[in-house]
Structures are given as C-alpha cells and as structure tokens.
C-alpha cells in the first residue's frame, strides 16, 4: 500500500479519504512556535465532488489513491454505459451513470474527454472545455434581432439545454462552454 507523508502534500495529490479517492485542493502548514505542527488540508472527494477539510499531525501518513487522468475518445452510449476508447492503444472502457453524471449532456461522439480512473475504473468524466453541438430545437425568434440580449432556450443534439441569442436557429451548430453551460458563439 503506497502512502504519502504530510511532507509530500501538495495540490493535486491523490489520496484516500473515508474510503474514497480524493485530490488535495489546498494544504496549509500551521505550527505554534513552541508546539505541535499540523497540516490543514482541503480534499475533494473525487466521487462526490464534495470538498472536505481534514487536519493531520505533521509527519503522519495517508494512503495514496490509485487515481490517474487519461484522455479518452467518447464512442457511444448503449443506454446504460458510456463507452470510451484510448486513441493510442484502442483499448475500450465503459463508464456508468455515476461517473458521467450531469456531464452526459455534453458528450458528443469523437470528442476527447478526460476520464479519471480509480483502480482502473472511471469515476469522473470531464468533457472538453468547449464543445460544438447542433441545435435540434428552439423558438424561431425574431428575425433581424442581433442584440443577443435576453436570449431563448435551445435544445442541443446531446440533450443539453442552453440559452442562446434570439438570432440563432434550429440546425445551426454553436460552441458552448461546458464548465459554465454558456453559449459562446456560432461554430
């Protein structure tokens, strides 16, 4: 079992916390001049996304989590699993609903996603920062309105619903920021 000592703590380090894999977000060394040193740590639970705070006595150790981020190409969804492929080895991996979560609505075939594997199994799937998707439904809106103010909801080919300017129409492809869910531009 690999372990890390508090001296190895830094943002991004993957560790086990409460039986789940986590990533250190912030690590602060605190010590009274004449007393015990502690590491005050914020850790993101990689399964739930929740951030928890923990304190360690400096010098303590914590179990390492076998977690790696890999770039995989999204292939298709079979109704239950989302299938990905390593573009170099052609090895395929299936991810369940829990790992894909709300990001399912951004997944478009061929796009390269960052898949976090815990003990070889996907636990989170991050779509690209920007995706290009086709509008399959939206109100026709007012012709000639180019102000972009107000906007209207549009349903995209992956099922995601984003607010778009009034001038954007069904059948067009647009760029969307997947982190904020905001319309960026026409593609």
């Amino acid at each position: 079992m690999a372990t890390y000592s508090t001296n190895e703590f830094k943002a991004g380090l993957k560790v086990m916390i409460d039986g789940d894999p986590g990533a250190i977000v912030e690590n602060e060394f605190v010590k009274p001049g004449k007393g015990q040193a502690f590491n005050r740590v914020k850790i993101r639970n990689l399964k739930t996304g929740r951030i928890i705070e923990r304190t360690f006595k400096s010098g303590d150790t914590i179990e390492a989590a076998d977690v790696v981020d890999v770039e995989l190409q999204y292939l298709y969804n079979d109704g239950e699993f989302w299938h990905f492929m390593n573009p170099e080895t052609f090895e395929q991996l299936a991810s369940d609903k829990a790992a894909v979560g709300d990001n399912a609505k951004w997944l478009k075939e061929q796009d390269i996603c960052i898949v976090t594997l815990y003990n070889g199994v996907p636990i989170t799937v991050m779509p690209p920062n920007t995706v290009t998707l086709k509008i399959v439904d939206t109100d026709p809106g007012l012709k000639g309105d180019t102000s972009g103010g107000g906007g209207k909801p549009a349903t995209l080919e992956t099922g995601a619903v984003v607010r778009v300017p009034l001038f954007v129409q069904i059948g067009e492809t647009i760029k969307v920021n997947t982190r904020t869910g905001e319309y960026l531009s026409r593609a």
Partner: protein
Amino acid sequence: MKEYASGEWQPTAALEVLKLRAQLLERIRAFFSKRGVLEVETPILSTSGTPDPALASLATRYTGPLYPHGQTFYLQTSPEFPMKRLLASGIGSIYQICKVFRDGESGRLHNPEFTMVEWYRVGLDHVQLMHEVEALVGELLAGHVALAETEWLSYHEVFARHTGLEPHTATAEDFERVAREHEIHLPAGPKPHHDVAIWRDLLLTHLIEPRLGQGRLTFVYDYPASQAALAQVRPGNPPLAERFELYLNGIEMANGFHELADSAEQRMRFERQQHARSTTALPPVPRDERLLAALAHGLPDCSGVALGFDRLVMLAAGVRSIREAVAFPLDRA
C-alpha cells in the same frame, strides 16, 4: 544540470518590500540604541542543540583544525543559549538580529531559515517587557497598519472566550468535543486521545490564533506550566508560566519569557524534553552544558523575547505569505 523555469532566479518579494525590510532593520537598531540595549552577535553553529520536542535542528559538519576528525554542529533554532551566556557574564541588556533555522517548517507563514529579533532586558519582568514589545512593534508598524488599542488576555481568557473551555483543567475528551463541534477533524485511526498538549495546540492553531489580534496587537500571557519552555513558573493553583506571545491579524509574531535562571530546574526541563524526544522518535541532541554552567554561575533576573522579523515585514507590507517578505525562500535558495 537542473533547468529552471524563467524567472526562478528572481526574488519572490517585491523590491519595495525588500527596501521596507531595510528601513525596518534600521528603525529596530535605532530603537535599541536609544534605550541603551547593546547589539551582539553569537555563533549560528553550536555543538549542542535545543532538546525542545517542538523544534528540529538542522545540522552540518566541520572538519579541520580543532576538530581533525570532524564535528557535528547544529544551526541555531534561536540565539537564546549563547545570549544567556553573555547575560550571565554581566553584559547587561542585549539584542541580536540573526538568522535562525528550523528543520521541517515550510508554509505560508514558515520558511526554514528566518530572521529573528531577539532581546533580553535585565531587571525587567515579562509584563514590563510586553510593554516594550508593544512600543517597538507599534513604532515599526506606524504608517503601515492602523492599530486599535492593544489587547491583553491571559491564556485562560483566550481559551474560555473562543472554545468555552478551561485550558488548565480540560481533559482530552473536552478538547476533542470542541474540535468536533467546530468541524475540526483529525483523520480516523490513531488519535492523540490522551495527549492534552496536542489537543490544546490543535484548538489554538485552528480556532483561536486566527481570531487573535484582529486589527490590534493582542498579547497572550500566563501559559500552562507544561508549556513553560524556558520561562519561570509562578507557583499557584494552577502554577503559571511567565510566558507571553504577541499576535497581530491572526499571526504569531513574538514569544517571550521571564527567564528561568535556576540551573537545576533548567537541567530537569532539558531531561524531560530529551525524554519526550525519545518517545516521539526525534533524534537526541547534545545538551548545552555551557548554558547550564552559565546559569549555575548566575543569570541576572531578566526577561527575553524573540520577534519574527519576516512576519513583521509581511504585516507591514500587507502581503499574505512569508515568500513575499523574503528575497529567496527555500525553493529558490
């Protein structure tokens, strides 16, 4: 040859902050000169080290004339011991501005090598010395930090105010309960259940210190006898260590003592600390017999204090980390 990212050769502190450092050093020297306190220098290297289990010394090795077969020298964690030898030789009130070294300490408020302003006042007790610290720090921060009226709180008062606990009698279970109530979690597994000192430090660092000295100097005094370090203990119920600390904006800036002068008591504390080191797997360090001999000869009644200069610069410059107050922290050294 290791390659560095561009800019890595540059200081982490702004040049303005480095100029402020120089000004503050000048003003410290002027302050002591006006008060007739003598500047001294003592060796950074010593054949002995502090046995304080909360401090880890760095060490180096000298080989040459005097020590043909090599000798381990410890880098000082504070200039306290040699300065006390000067005091025992009758030099009078003294101060020193020097580098001190602590293994294992690096973080937002820590760099393993840092600058200490340490001074000893013959004939003053810790209460009088606290007022001198207030005068010096107030003068140095004037024009940089607006300070409300200084606050004076006993260790008992700060614990009662921020944790509701009586620090001198509370049990490990009491401390653990308060920690839990404030969502301070130690990880599962072996916990310092019975170690009251660790719980006290946990609550101090997580709950109390961040709230001390908000916009003002806060002095905390009368520590538990178990945290006396090198301070005199005043008999009573409970007995209290004549020790104080200074906080500003949640940051510990200074630690002072009404100095222990009793050689036998000092020897006993060294032995207790050596024992504590052995139980926590810390390496033993040679005891400073020259300090004990000086105390046996006679230390004048005096109080001493150490002020972290880099933290003072941080606060004066309004920067968030010690990196922004020193030219080259450890990772650029």
